[in-house]
């Protein structure tokens, strides 16, 4: 049982109160009883005297000692009398030698003459006996009181238990297991329809109603918020573009799946921070940082296209970065960074640029690419040898075996060129069956040696698998030096062209000559050719 439970407390209080009241009333009762007993004793001594008054009167009248002795002895046999004595005519008759405490004195009246005192009778009451008797009565009374206190306590506890504690404990227990929102209500205990307890239960039920109502409202609200949050998360998580929320210092607060995917693509581990503005992810972070600083200084959203840091092997990744500064209610600043992958577009653009400068078939520069790169050399005044190659008998192959075979031959030639050129050199298709090479910083000997080797390679028979036939092309080659032969591209090209034509002119008569340098041309040729 609970030590500070209501019933126990009540029992203790009622018990103590009963004992205290019992004790006090016993004390009081003892005093009252004692006084009553004293009074009663005096009264009974008075009656005693009355019964022996005649005898005492006779004894005193006749001064009869024996009779008087009989009177006092007779009185002393009574338990309320401790001692008794008679005085008359100078005679004293006493029962015993004991002292006379609280004596009661009676005047002995003459039997025959009215209002004539003829002696005294003194009676000592038995105070000890009276006290003992009073105590006995008080004890009995105390017993009765204790019994009564017990009964009262029991009744009070029972009533309190049945009427107050039990219903309250039941209410408390029911309340303890009641969970707001489950619709449970407390029931009003029996006999408490109109009591305070009943009122408490009703009030609690009203409170439960209100709480439940609030619960329902809040639950609904929460569901709405959850739905909204779900949609937001869907938006956030399903975004193809990485979205990251960071602190200005660079600590990442929030990121979506797309960001993780991007990190994976970059071969990076997920980290808490990649530096301010995720700068560690970028190939050239200083550009991004300065751009963002500039934009923020003008209260603008920072956008720009930047390349991400990638390992050598993988493809380059380009992103459009959007950095937004967000200041929340408690005046803290956050950056929202969105990365849009624009690698594909970048590659397309690159490929467009490539297509513009390269020949699709041979994967060598086209005329535009060649011109661009040669102009670059001229601009930098770097010495080079320009070689112009025109294939022999190509037209015949084209006519006999068709364009496809012609293309095949062109690819074969381009391949030979690529194999022959040094790393610092480059070459391209000038158009049709014409090729141009740039030999970086090459003198005549080197050039001649390289071109001879190339001619040998080109001149090897080529097996056309479709026709199961060997085809053979040759090359007529003209070359000119920059800056020795000319300082303008067109001039050099023209010189090389002339030299090449010279070779072509002579191919029937002198097929062994396949190369001619511009400075070997006749002056006439230069002027009129």
């Amino acid at each position, binding site marked *: 049982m609970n030590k500070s439970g209501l019933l126990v407390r009540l029992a203790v209080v009622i018990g103590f109160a009963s004992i205290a009241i019992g004790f006090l009333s016993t004390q009081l009762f003892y005093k009252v009883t004692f006084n009553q007993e004293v009074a009663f004793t005096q009264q009974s001594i008075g009656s005693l005297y009355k019964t022996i008054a005649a*005898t005492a009167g*006779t004894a005193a*009248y*006749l*001064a*009869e000692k*024996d*009779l008087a002795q009989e009177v006092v002895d007779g009185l002393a046999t009574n338990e309320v009398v401790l001692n008794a004595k008679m005085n008359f005519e100078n005679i004293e008759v006493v029962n015993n030698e004991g002292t006379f405490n609280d004596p009661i004195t009676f005047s002995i009246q003459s*039997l*025959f*003459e*009215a209002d004539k005192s003829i002696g005294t009778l003194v009676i000592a009451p038995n105070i000890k006996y009276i006290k003992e008797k009073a105590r006995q009565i008080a004890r009995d009374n105390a017993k009765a009181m204790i019994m009564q206190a017990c009964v009262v306590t029991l009744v009070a506890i029972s009533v309190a238990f049945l009427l107050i504690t039990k219903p309250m404990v039941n209410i408390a227990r029911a309340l303890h297991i009641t969970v707001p929102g489950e619709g449970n209500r407390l029931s009003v205990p029996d006999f408490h329809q109109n009591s305070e307890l009943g009122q408490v239960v009703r009030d609690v039920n009203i409170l439960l109603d209100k709480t439940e109502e609030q619960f329902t409202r809040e639950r609904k609200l929460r569901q709405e918020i959850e739905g909204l949050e779900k949609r937001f998360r869907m938006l956030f998580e399903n975004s193809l573009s990485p979205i990251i929320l960071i602190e200005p210092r660079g600590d990442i607060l929030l990121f979506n799946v797309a960001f993780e995917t991007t990190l994976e693509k970059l071969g990076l581990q997920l980290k808490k921070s990649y530096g301010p503005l995720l700068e560690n992810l970028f190939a050239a972070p200083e550009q991004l940082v300065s751009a963002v600083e500039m934009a923020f200084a003008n209260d603008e959203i920072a956008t720009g296209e930047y390349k991400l840091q990638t390992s050598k092997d993988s493809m380059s990744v380009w992103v459009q970065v959007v950095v937004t500064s967000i200041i929340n209610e408690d005046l803290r600043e956050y950056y929202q960074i969105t990365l849009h992958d624009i690698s594909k577009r970048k590659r397309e653009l690159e490929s467009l640029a490539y297509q513009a400068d390269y020949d699709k078939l041979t994967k060598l520069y086209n005329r535009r690419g060649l011109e661009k790169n040669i102009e670059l050399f001229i601009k930098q005044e770097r010495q080079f040898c320009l070689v112009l190659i025109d294939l022999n008998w190509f037209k015949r192959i084209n006519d006999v075996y068709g364009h496809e075979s012609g293309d095949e031959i062109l690819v074969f030639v381009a391949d030979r060129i690529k194999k022959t050129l040094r790393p610092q050199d480059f070459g391209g298709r000038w158009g049709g069956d014409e090729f141009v090479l740039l030999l970086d910083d090459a003198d005549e000997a080197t050039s001649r040696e390289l071109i001879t080797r190339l001619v040998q390679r080109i001149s090897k028979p080529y097996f056309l698998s479709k026709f199961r036939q060997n085809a053979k092309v040759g090359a007529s080659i003209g070359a000119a030096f920059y800056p020795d032969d000319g300082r303008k591209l067109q001039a050099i090209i023209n010189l090389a062209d002339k030299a090449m034509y010279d070779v072509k002119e002579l191919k029937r008569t002198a097929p062994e000559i396949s190369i001619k340098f511009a400075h070997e041309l006749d002056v006439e040729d230069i002027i009129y050719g």
Partner: protein
Amino acid sequence: MQQLSSLKVLLLIGGLTFASFAMSSDLVLVVHLNNPTSTLSRSQVIDLYMGKFVAFPDGSKATPVDIENDLETRAEFYESLVGMPLARVNAYWSKVKFSGRARPPIQKKNEQAILDFIMETENAIAYIHKDKVTSDVKVVYRLNE
């Protein structure tokens, strides 16, 4: 009913008055002519008849006499002297007799016998009606005084 009880009370008071009036009897105490006592007090008479001091004032022993046959006179005497009915007087003597210290008065048949006894006994004393007093006896106390 109330009137009736008031009437009863009146009758009762009247009766009492009559009784007390009757108590003032015309009895007298007489002795032998040779007795030196000329008069006695009421206390002396009581002591003589109730056995406390059965002697005359000069110390000579006295012999009190009661009337035997005339109970009415005897009752009148004790009623007037000590205010007790005869029954109580008898009870008193029955109590005292055993102690042996006192004895009740001797008894003579009638007033004539009493007068005769007084005349021949010098230390006797007795009560008789006033009108029976002769010159052969001496009156020492009158109860109606």
